[in-house]
């Protein structure tokens, strides 16, 4: 059960291939009404009913927050992931009825900022599509630096350049173009807030440099695009409900708990919001923590796990669920 979120019954109104890896999906409400209002940076959790399996993956809303007649998400195909993006690419066609969550924003703009500096890597561009549309409508001051592998994989790069011209800077890996991070971070006016979304290596690099250059942590916002990683299957005992379950290779621990009919709270399903934090009663083995929520101390203690992204290897694991 997602904390405080009601579900939305939607229909896929359009499916648009954007490039070799990315496809865009449009959703409208089945009852024809407007969708709930959202702010730039929000995501929805999409329920994917794939035969026996149900996957729940979060995707950033990338349309303008001013238009709630439809929601749009862009999904990058991950051929070695757990299959959620492949399901979206292969099986989701216009007219399909789906269920998505209400939007939740864990990567919102701080509107007290005098200026917004945005750094995107790859598919990490999607929340900025909504945020730039929101800011542009209000006359907000922003600057977007977008790194992509090649021009043809620069998802929405042309759209952004067309809309915002020189406020968007592009960097292509195949042309050895690199953002001059030191210079960009050192030349921002006081009152600027920084937003980073992309691969975790990029987020770590930007956060480290910003901290060293004196950016207060309150001004640095980031969103990890961490899908749950597949891994070896393992067994878990749920002490409260008295169930023993198996987590498959392609399943997250949270999905396995849900498949057993137990409904822990969740919000982001990406290891950042903290809602699904679960106490460990006992364990014999090794945790594979993939979250950005628990402290290093929590990770070492072996007393807590974030079942949305983290896994376990070993003989036994008993959780308070």
């Amino acid at each position, binding site marked *: 059960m997602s904390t405080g979120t009601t579900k939305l019954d939607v229909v896929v109104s359009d499916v648009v291939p954007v490039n070799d890896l990315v496809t865009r999906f449009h959703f409208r409400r089945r009852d024809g009404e407007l969708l709930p209002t959202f702010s730039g940076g929000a995501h929805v959790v999409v329920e994917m009913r794939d035969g026996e399996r149900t996957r729940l993956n979060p995707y950033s809303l990338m349309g303008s927050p001013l238009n709630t007649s439809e929601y749009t998400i862009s999904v990058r195909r991950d051929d070695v992931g757990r299959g959620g993006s492949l399901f979206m690419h292969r099986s989701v066609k216009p007219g399909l009825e789906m269920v998505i969550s209400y939007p939740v924003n864990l990567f919102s703009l701080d509107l007290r*900022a005098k200026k917004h500096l945005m750094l995107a890597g790859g598919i990490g561009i999607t929340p900025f599509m909504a945020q730039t549309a929101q800011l542009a409508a209000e006359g907000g001051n922003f600057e977007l630096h977008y790194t992509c592998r090649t021009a043809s994989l620069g998802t929405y790069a042309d759209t952004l350049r067309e809309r915002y011209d020189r406020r968007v800077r592009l960097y292509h890996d195949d042309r050895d173009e690199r953002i001059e991070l030191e210079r960009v*971070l*050192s030349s921002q006016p*006081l009152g600027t807030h920084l937003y980073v979304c992309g691969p975790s290596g990029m987020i770590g690099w930007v956060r480290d440099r910003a901290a060293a250059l004196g950016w207060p942590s*309150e001004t640095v916002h980031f969103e990890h695009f961490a899908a749950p990683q597949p891994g070896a299957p393992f067994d878990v005992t749920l002490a409260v409900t008295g169930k023993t379950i198996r987590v498959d290779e392609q399943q997250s621990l949270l999905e396995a708990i849900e498949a057993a009919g137990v409904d822990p709270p969740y919000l982001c399903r990406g290891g950042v919001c903290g809602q699904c934090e679960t106490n460990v009663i006992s364990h014999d083995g090794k945790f594979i923590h993939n979250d950005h929520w628990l402290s290093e101390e929590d990770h070492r203690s072996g007393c807590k796990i974030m079942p949305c992204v983290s896994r376990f290897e070993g003989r036994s694991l008993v959780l308070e669920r």
Partner: protein
Amino acid sequence: MAAKSIISRPIYGTLSPQPGKHHLFIADAEGALAITDLAAKAPAGFFGDAHIIFIPGPDGKHVATLEALKPAQFYQGYSFASALPRLKQTLANAHMGLRLYLAGTEGLIGQAMQTALEAGIDHTSMQTEHRGSLARRMQCVHCKGITENVTTQPATCSHCGLLLLVRDHYSRRLAAFQGVCINAEDRSEIPPMEEIFR
């Protein structure tokens, strides 16, 4: 050290050197000693990128001590009001990477913080340390006039003359404590005035 009471009552810390490219200090009177204490913990060359705006007390002490830290810029003002244009100009030209350190009386910290908030610095991003007088800047909730250097409880509004209870309720936006009429029911009731914010 100011006592903790209600949630809006500011709590001050101890200055410590922050990572950053430039360091801006604003201090009055004994606030200078918070800067010299920080200097003892600061890495070599820290003051090479520092700018100190200092308003000495009536005794004019601590100027030489601060100059001895060899900051890149040192400015001595006669009052906060006289230093304000320089502070505003400095903040207007500053870039992210500037760190702010405020030390001294509550009035100085509050007014410098108010100016910095307007320039876009979050109050949680500023280092503060209270030193010296506990005298308060007070806003009369009735006439909205601000009275500086209030040391008594109750205190007389310097604008409308009402007798005001000086509350711990503080406004960062106004950089002032709230003063509320203490004898609204019966003006002839005059409670004794004590000097408590020294």
